[in-house]
């Protein structure tokens, strides 16, 4: 193993209300692939953003090639040889491969762009990496895998000494991944250091030399990949102290009626043959890592996105859901993870948002019955303890937790019996979180049924009666809360090649 090229020591970073990085250490050596692992929100991406100058660290030191450095932006980091290959491809589809590679630093001939020179340079680069891509091809004509190769090639073309891969394989097929690994092994031989962020345990075992694990914004430890098992890594990832007691047993009777049944739901790559049942009065947790297809499942079920196939039964009756209107009429309400975009109309009042889904009940002839509207809004402000100066307050002036309550009020006003909570406490501070939990428990006691999508393990274990685990668009397991453990869930949520 080579010399140390990059050391991050005691990196600390706070955002308002969140201690994102708590004195994290990281060490990368020349010619190695270091896996950086951790659950959603463990701080991996934040750490890499601090390294490349997107975020400014609060304290700690970064030593690169023997010198202490601090980049102000990614451009500076690039020039110094530290490059990120992103999970989402940042390519311009209508340009050629070569034009994409050299964007922002085009070769010029006078004032004209020298396309021929760029094509030649791109060809040389691809030859060096043993990649077979035509530089003159239009980017959007390439497969996702090839586009990913271009991203890597672009990183290399910056004379990179450290390349960071942020979930590079998320969109790739098996053979494409294999091809990418070939390139990575090649780069290793050229003494380039690589940081590999991925949730895929099998890849970690194949391609990396060491594994650094993070948890809740802190450094947990580093293992030699060859000497550890998948279980070792998972234990390090989840081995936190749980402050809230997880639910040990479900209070929902085993024979409670099924209010929602979804069979063989298909909607693109992210929702493949998903089936499940939701019983009356239960909270069904949907667990999984980012990009597991949970939100996509919910949106397809709700009719927000088109689905390819699948049957949906509400209270035993088969229903057709082609758009959100159909879903709402079936008594389903969806509370999106992105409230500002999908949940509320921020420039409207609390009252107006409350009646949004049930306008027809608040009409007096052709006029809106403002009095009735105010009454119901007042009722739910009180019942949900929403903190607002009044129901005529614009929702934009409310905090995240209170905005969430307005969305809940909207669906309660509509009298929806099935509620889909997508990341119900994202961006909500701890105190308000507990209130939302209490509220959800109260709702199921009153006979509502809840699907709760959550990326927080503690939330899943604390709230769910049963847990569905998804991974890469497929349902990988279903657990009763009495048999659910962090380790089992994490095992189901990470992919393994049989």
């Amino acid at each position: 193993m080579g010399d140390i090229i990059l050391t991050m020591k005691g990196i600390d970073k706070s955002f308002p209300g969140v201690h994102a990085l708590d004195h994290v250490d990281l060490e990368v050596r020349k010619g190695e692939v270091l896996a950086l692992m951790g659950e959603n929100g463990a701080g991996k991406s934040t750490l890499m953003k601090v390294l490349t100058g997107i975020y400014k660290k609060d304290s700690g030191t970064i030593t690169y090639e023997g010198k202490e450095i601090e980049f102000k932006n990614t451009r500076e980091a690039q020039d110094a040889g530290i490059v990120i290959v992103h999970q989402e491809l940042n390519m311009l589809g209508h340009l050629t491969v070569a034009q994409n590679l050299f964007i922002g630093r085009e070769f010029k001939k006078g004032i004209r762009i020298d396309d021929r020179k760029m094509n030649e340079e791109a060809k040389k680069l691809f030859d060096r990496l043993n990649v077979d891509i035509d530089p003159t091809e239009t980017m959007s004509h390439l497969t996702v895998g090839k586009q990913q190769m271009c991203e890597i090639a672009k990183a290399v073309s910056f004379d990179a000494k450290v390349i960071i891969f942020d979930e590079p394989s998320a969109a790739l097929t098996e053979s494409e991944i294999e091809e990418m690994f070939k390139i990575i092994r090649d780069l290793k031989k050229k003494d380039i250091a690589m940081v590999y962020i991925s949730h895929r345990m099998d890849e970690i075992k194949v391609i990396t030399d060491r594994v650094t694990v993070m948890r809740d914004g802190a450094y947990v430890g580093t293992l030699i990949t060859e000497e550890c098992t998948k279980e070792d890594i998972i234990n390090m990832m989840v081995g936190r102290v749980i402050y809230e007691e997880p639910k040990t047993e479900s209070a929902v009777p085993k024979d409670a009626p099924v209010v929602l049944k979804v069979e063989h739901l298909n909607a693109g790559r992210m929702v493949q043959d998903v089936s499940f049942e939701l019983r009356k009065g239960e909270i069904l947790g949907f667990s999984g890592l980012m990009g597991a297809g949970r939100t996509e499942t919910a949106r397809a079920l709700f009719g927000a996105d088109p689905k390819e196939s699948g049957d949906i039964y509400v209270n035993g009756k088969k229903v057709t859901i082609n758009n959100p209107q159909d879903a709402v009429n079936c008594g389903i309400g969806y509370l999106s993870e992105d409230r500002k975009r999908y949940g509320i109309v921020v420039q409207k009042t609390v009252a107006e948002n409350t009646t949004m889904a049930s306008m027809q009940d608040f009409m007096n002839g052709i006029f809106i019955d403002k009095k009735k509207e105010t009454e119901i809004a007042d009722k739910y402000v009180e019942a949900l303890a929403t903190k607002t100066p009044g129901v005529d307050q614009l929702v934009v002036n409310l905090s995240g937790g209170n905005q969430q309550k307005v969305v809940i009020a909207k669906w309660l006003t509509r009298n929806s019996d099935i509620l889909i909570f997508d990341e119900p406490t994202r961006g909500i501070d701890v105190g308000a979180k507990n209130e939302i939990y209490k509220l959800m428990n109260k709702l199921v006691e009153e006979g509502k049924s809840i699907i709760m999508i959550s990326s927080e393990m503690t939330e899943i274990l604390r709230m769910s009666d049963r847990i569905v685990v998804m991974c890469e668009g497929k349902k990988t397991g279903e657990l009763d809360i009495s048999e659910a453990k962090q380790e089992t869930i994490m095992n189901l949520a990470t992919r393994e090649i049989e």
Partner: protein
Amino acid sequence: MKVEKIKQNAFVKKVGFNRIVLIFVLILMYLAFGALTGGSFFGVSRITNTLNYVYFLGFLSLGVTFVIATGGIDFSIGPVMYCCALVSGYSLITYGVPMTASLIMSVLIGVVFGVFNGYLVAYWKVPPFIVSMASMNIAKGIAAVFTKTQSVSWPQSSTADGWYRNFVSMNGIPVGLIIFLAVSVICAVVLNKTKWGRYILCLGSNEEAVRLSGVNVKKWKMLAYIICGTLVGIASIFFVAAYTTVQPGYGDQYNNEAIAGCVMGGTSMVGGLASISGTVIGVIIISLLQQGILALGFTKEYQYIITGLIVIAAVYADVSARRRKN
């Protein structure tokens, strides 16, 4: 997260700061033009005379307010108004269609264009800018083909069919003003007190959130364009009642003026925020400004320059107000 609240006087809050400023601007402009023209700009008859020629603009402005409230735009209103006036007028003169039927036809043509624009924007998701640009040309083309590119002269007041001109003014009574204000009140009620207006404003603010609330957003979006088309049709009646002669191939100059009146009144170009009373004051300011410019001895072309600059200024004010909020 605490939001600083500016203490506001109850009266200011009720009427709206924006509108108070507008009324102030209106009075100031009136006085300024009066002084500059040596007093010839003053007088009640002068005002109503001026207004007689701009009611149509008021209806256009009211109409486009609904479309802009959805976050859309309609650049076809002027030419569509011309199309209404030309096609029904030509039918009246050449084919002997009765006056009442011709007037109804005017409105219906406006409605048809509203349905057309609205359907393409809401259901086919063609950008409003493109749709309205295209239908502007379609309206011009239809009018020209139908009239064989000849101008159409509606009957004079003295003829038997001349009664339609009473819509603007009858024996000195400003009928046009009364109708315009009445329609404005109806528009304000529709926008603020009914489900139609509620959904139009909400979808202008956040269409996806409204859709995910189970609301048929396409229907309501299309409705905004239909309301607009209807008002454009009505506008055409007031246009011919004031000017009687219509020439094919024109009408686009009124797009800017109507939109200027609308955005000046505080309707936001990004949608979600609209004010009918603001539009009414805004369009009166635009009209006054134009008459004032003419009274000062400038040619019509200067109006175009000033209206263009006003649109930019009003939209910039809206954009920068938003930026401050964020």
